[in-house]
């Protein structure tokens, strides 16, 4: 069985290595301060206690007053997994977070997909452009305030 890291235990270990990095935690999740995210991810990947070498899934949720980015990590050598969350974009204006593409190549398309559909910018991504929709598409459709059946979508042109 893959062992899931308990939230309180993981939070304690992360806080011990990097000060002021944990915002809060519950049974299975740990919320990381977005300023320290890259530092924490680097530690999770390289520290011999964790060795999270596989980034399973990278996704985001729009909670209206803020956005949340969710990372699922797995360590193949230890057969363990953990969930890291990060709250960004409290004013809905220009939400952004550090990219982890330099640590895990697998974040490439997943970060582009989040930028395309949710509109969260990943600082440091070398090729951050739309992946599913065409350039010039108005808005980001997975946001809760996105208006479907908008005439401007029909008239917008695919850019090349």
């Amino acid at each position, binding site marked *: *069985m*893959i062992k899931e890291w308990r939230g309180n235990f993981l939070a304690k270990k992360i806080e011990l290595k990097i000060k002021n990095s944990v915002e809060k935690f519950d049974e299975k999740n740990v919320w990381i301060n977005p300023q320290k995210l890259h530092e924490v991810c680097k530690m999770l990947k390289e520290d011999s206690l964790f060795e999270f*070498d*596989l*980034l*399973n*899934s990278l*996704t985001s*949720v*729009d909670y209206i007053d803020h956005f949340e980015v*969710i990372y*699922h990590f797995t360590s*193949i050598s230890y*057969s363990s997994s953990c*969930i890291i969350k990060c709250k960004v974009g409290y004013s809905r204006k220009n939400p952004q977070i550090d990219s982890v593409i330099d640590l*895990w*190549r*697998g*974040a*490439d*398309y*997943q970060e582009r*997909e989040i930028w395309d*559909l949710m509109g969260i910018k990943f600082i440091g991504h070398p090729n951050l452009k*739309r*992946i*599913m*929709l*065409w350039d010039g598409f108005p808005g980001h*459709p*997975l946001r809760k305030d996105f208006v*479907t059946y908008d005439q401007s979508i029909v008239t917008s042109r695919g850019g090349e």
Partner: protein
Amino acid sequence: MSLETRPVTVNLGPQHPSTHGVFRMRVTFDGEEIIDVEPIFGYLHRGSEKLAEERTYSQIVTLTDRMDYVSSMLNNQAYILAVEKLCNIVPSPRGVWLRMIASELQRIASHFVATGFLLQDLGALGTPLIYCMRERENILDLFEMLCGARITNSYLRPGGVFMDAPDVFWPALSRSLGDIEKSIDEIEDYLSGNEIIFSRTKGTAVLSSESLVNASITGPMLRASGVDWDLRHRNPYDYYSEITFKRILHTASDNYARYWVRVQEMRESLKIISQCIKNIEPGPVRPSFDDVPRLVRPEPGDSYAAIEGSKGELGFYLVSDGGISPYRMHVRAPSLINLTLLREMLVGELFGDLFVIFGSVDLNMGEVDR
């Protein structure tokens, strides 16, 4: 004297027959050698994740069918596991055995499609593809007995499956298992030791296991590089902990290894199905509507469930706000993520190998674009 060459950029797709759907690559060639590749997605984007936010948990099963349309049962299974985790549903044993049989049959069908189209891309026009599709037809006939549908099954429900297998299903299943085994032998006789297949697939598109793990690539592609990572073994969902099977590994990590791993995995799936048939017992196929209502309303929270799909780790992330439809659904699509290293695989290879390498990834555009 050396001749000066000029790079040429060619658009392959979206309507190219070898791109397995509507996929487009902007490829730059120097003579016959590939020097740059830019994949362009999105021609089949239907917004499934947004559509799911307006449907009830049972209705979304039909959306998952249409993601990876050659392995609908596996998509159903991954989604249902996420719903069961979110609502704390205990499934009925007979329903679980039935969906394990269905999903293993689907894995065989999906690997047959991958093998057939890989050989089609190699230039073996027609014959091997028809052989593989013939066996897939058998499996689709079995699905028709199970649930009335052949491709878009929607067979699974939270807690099990929606109806029991008819009496005619069991003799037909055991007959098909023998037929499938014979045709895998046939394919191996013709192809696994074939000199032409060797010369075209061995040593092309080699990737190191570290780079595959780093790029989140899972499934047969990862196992072809020697990493023992199969979620059925590592994190047994459903009743896989009661099943014994061999994990198929290869160390070469080239196109041949990926083909070989898929063919051998079909044999293991057959073994898993015969163990499921032994273990299955009469009983209800899903909990009563008092235990699991048709309209489930999970408590607010989130869940992530992943299965070993035919192409890699297939995961569903669901967020509930207590309503009748999910607040957010995200699909961890193996087909999309397995394409991460496409550029590294293709650069430096020849034009003739382009579609072979592309076919060895085994992707499905319905899942890439969703």
